[in-house]
């Protein structure tokens, strides 16, 4: 188990370094200096800024400097904000984690009962409703869901705030908008795997020996059907962390995604690099946790 863990961590570190190298190289395709100066800046001012930012150095040298500084926790100052890029991202990270976690909770809270019940009551009105719900969920992008929620729940009903991050009320709609798509995907996935599991020999055996149906479904069958769901959960959670920016923009949610996307358009390399690096780290960590959780759910795939 320890060997497996060490191996996975090393793989993760290599992935993170690879991601940082790729984003570093891609971001250097453009020169940000024109964006950082007034339009009538003189050529001397442009050159002076390029030198100050170290952009006049060969790209390999720039990358080595970046890596050397990063190992000491110095990711440089954001070009636009002229503040430490790391701090800017760290300040925004809790909001993004909070939103992604809430979105995931919302998704699971609906997907598990919908997936399980539509499998148990296959071809019933509930199953049809769940399938329709899943189809709608996958057909409606989160920005559209977000805007509809604002117009209906905030403007027409006046129940929840339309924007901001002030208390639990302001988290509800962004979490629904973010979790909407995974609900649909997870419901479909869980229904499908539950159908397989419910049709398996061990479930039939459990029923034959008189185990109550409630226990069969929610304890034994769901646990077996959960492995692919957990895989999906890991992927979606990581996607939510890096892809929450659309929801963050719509609800003026002060998260990291919004800042990173704006950094990309502004060619704010230090901020972009830290943002991507954090996304990569979170992705690696979440995937590692997912892999480790398989063993808990199914002892047959423990990494002994």
């Amino acid at each position, binding site marked *: 188990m320890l060997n497996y863990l060490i191996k996975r961590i090393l793989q993760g570190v290599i992935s993170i370094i690879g991601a940082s190298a790729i984003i570093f190289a891609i971001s250097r395709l453009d*020169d*940000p200096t*024109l964006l950082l100066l007034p339009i009538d800046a003189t050529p001397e001012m442009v050159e002076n800024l390029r030198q100050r930012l170290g952009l006049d150095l060969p790209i390999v040298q720039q990358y080595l400097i970046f890596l050397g500084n990063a190992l000491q926790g110095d990711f440089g100052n954001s070009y636009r904000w002229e*503040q430490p890029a790391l701090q800017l991202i760290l300040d925004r990270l809790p909001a993004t984690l909070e939103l992604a976690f809430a979105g995931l909770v919302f998704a699971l809270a609906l997907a598990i009962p919908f997936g399980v019940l539509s499998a148990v009551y296959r071809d019933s009105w509930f199953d049809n409703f769940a399938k329709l719900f899943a189809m709608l969920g996958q057909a409606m992008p989160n920005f559209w869901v977000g*805007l509809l929620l604002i117009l209906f729940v905030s403007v027409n009903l006046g129940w929840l705030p339309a924007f901001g991050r002030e208390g639990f009320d302001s988290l509800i709609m962004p979490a629904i908008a973010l979790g909407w798509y995974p609900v649909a995907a997870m419901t479909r996935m869980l229904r499908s795997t539950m159908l397989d599991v419910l049709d398996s020999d061990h479930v039939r055996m459990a029923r034959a020996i008189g185990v109550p149906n409630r226990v069969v479904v929610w304890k034994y069958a769901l646990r077996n059907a959960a492995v692919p769901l957990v895989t999906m959960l890991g992927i979606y959670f990581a996607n939510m962390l890096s892809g929450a920016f659309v929801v963050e923009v719509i609800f003026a949610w002060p998260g990291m995604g919004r800042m990173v996307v704006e950094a990309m358009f502004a060619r704010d390399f230090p901020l972009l690099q830290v943002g991507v690096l954090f996304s990569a780290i979170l992705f690696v960590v979440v995937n590692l946790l997912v892999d480790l959780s398989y063993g808990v759910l199914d002892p047959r795939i423990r990494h002994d």
Partner: protein
Amino acid sequence: MKKFACAVAGAASLLLCAGTQAAEPATGSLTIAQAAESTMLDVTRAAAGVDWYILGNINEQLLQPDPTLEVKNWLAEKWELTEVDGLPVIEIWLRKGVKFHHGGELTSSDMAFAHKRLANPDVSKWPHYQAKVDHIEIIDDHHFKIIFKEPDGTFIPGAGLMRLYGISEAYYTSHSEEEIQQRPDGTGPWKLVDRKVKEEFVLEAHDDYWNQEHRPGVKNLTIKIIPEDITRVAALQTGAVDWIDAVPPAMIEDVKKMDGIATTARPSGNNLFMSLPQYLDKLPGRNDNPFKDVRVRRAAALAVDMEGIIEHVLFGQAQRYTTTTPGSAAYDASVEPYPYDPQKAKQLMTEAGYANGFDVNCYNLITPREPNVKEYGEAFYAYLGQVGIRCKLIGEEYAPWLARNNRSREPQNDGILTHMWGHGVVADPGTPWSGHMHCYAPGEGWGSYSHYCDPEMDAMVKEQATVMDPADRIPLLKRIGKKKYEDVAGGITTYVPLVTFAWREDKVDYKPWPWMGFWRKLQEIGIKH
């Protein structure tokens, strides 16, 4: 010493007509929302237009345009432009009793410090604006002279009006750069109390503000940052905020119909135009140079129904212009935009030898900086096709567009290019005209964004850069404007976007003030009693 007859105003004449706010101390709170967020809060370091949304409320300059766009003496009580030994000198008498947010009174020494800081290229984004100033000579605490080493035609009217901010030397020298940015000091009507990045700015009315006639009528102001248009409008509609900026064009009619909501529109500080390159034959794979011929340039100008584009693509939220817009020193009402006349355009194309038209790349700018810029470009380029200027439409995002536009950068522009550059809603267009109407002169600073070239225009543009006396400068700018129109010089002028503000009229007392054409200066906002 020669003394020019420049604007000299006494203190009594400086106070503008009665505003909407009375002189009693401000109380209460308002929450408003803006679409875009200022990043840099130090006037010396700030470069992006959006930075002035907040800074325009914290910092002030020697001159300030009023709501009618008339430039008034502001921190300067009066000023004179004179000449000593053939070189210009601006003599300034500072207003007395102007207090900084963090204490202390504005003096000549602070202005000299502001000049030094702005001239320092390691700190400043604007050292080129101080490059022709030799030094500042302090006469006394409220009297100083700006001594030039050579004339600078755009120093007085250019972006920022005399280009010196009242910043406290004591504060700036006793705080770190980071602290300055977190809590900037100034003399403006609003003091920054707190800021949460990506969330809000918290401002407080400056109790000791010098201008008792024109000041905020509310004590606390929270500016929320809501980038999404529909959310911002919803926030106003639900009463979560009391005022918003940048109402999206497509929603303006709906917002106007909302109960209790008032709106007003103002021309933004941005001028849009289409650059027509005159050097295509010098680029690989091309032998012709259609835009060198003024008839082709005029044909392009006549080919486009800009009124139609403004009405249907920009939802009426734009204003046509030819030279500049009202409020600019160069504005000339007698120069009208080219009409939509495709027949005449085709005739000009035939006369120029392009009866069968020609193909050209058309670079369509994609940016959220102004609403519907991409759609405007698509419509514009489609109109050109009707008279034989067949566009290969290429969308270009802002950063690569900026590089293509800049003559010193690669790739070299090889087509028509959507362009935007503020010509000064107040002030004048001297700087942008130097940038896009003078021939590109590598290393000399002329024509950095120019795709046009004409020796006569070069001479006029160079002359305006040295003429400081408004009595001579304004007629010269108008002559350049006439030639610009006749020659379709520097591209086809198209429109200036309008920016619309909306607020709850039962609660908010609001009068828009310009600041570099952004109109986010909240000089007079308060609670309606």
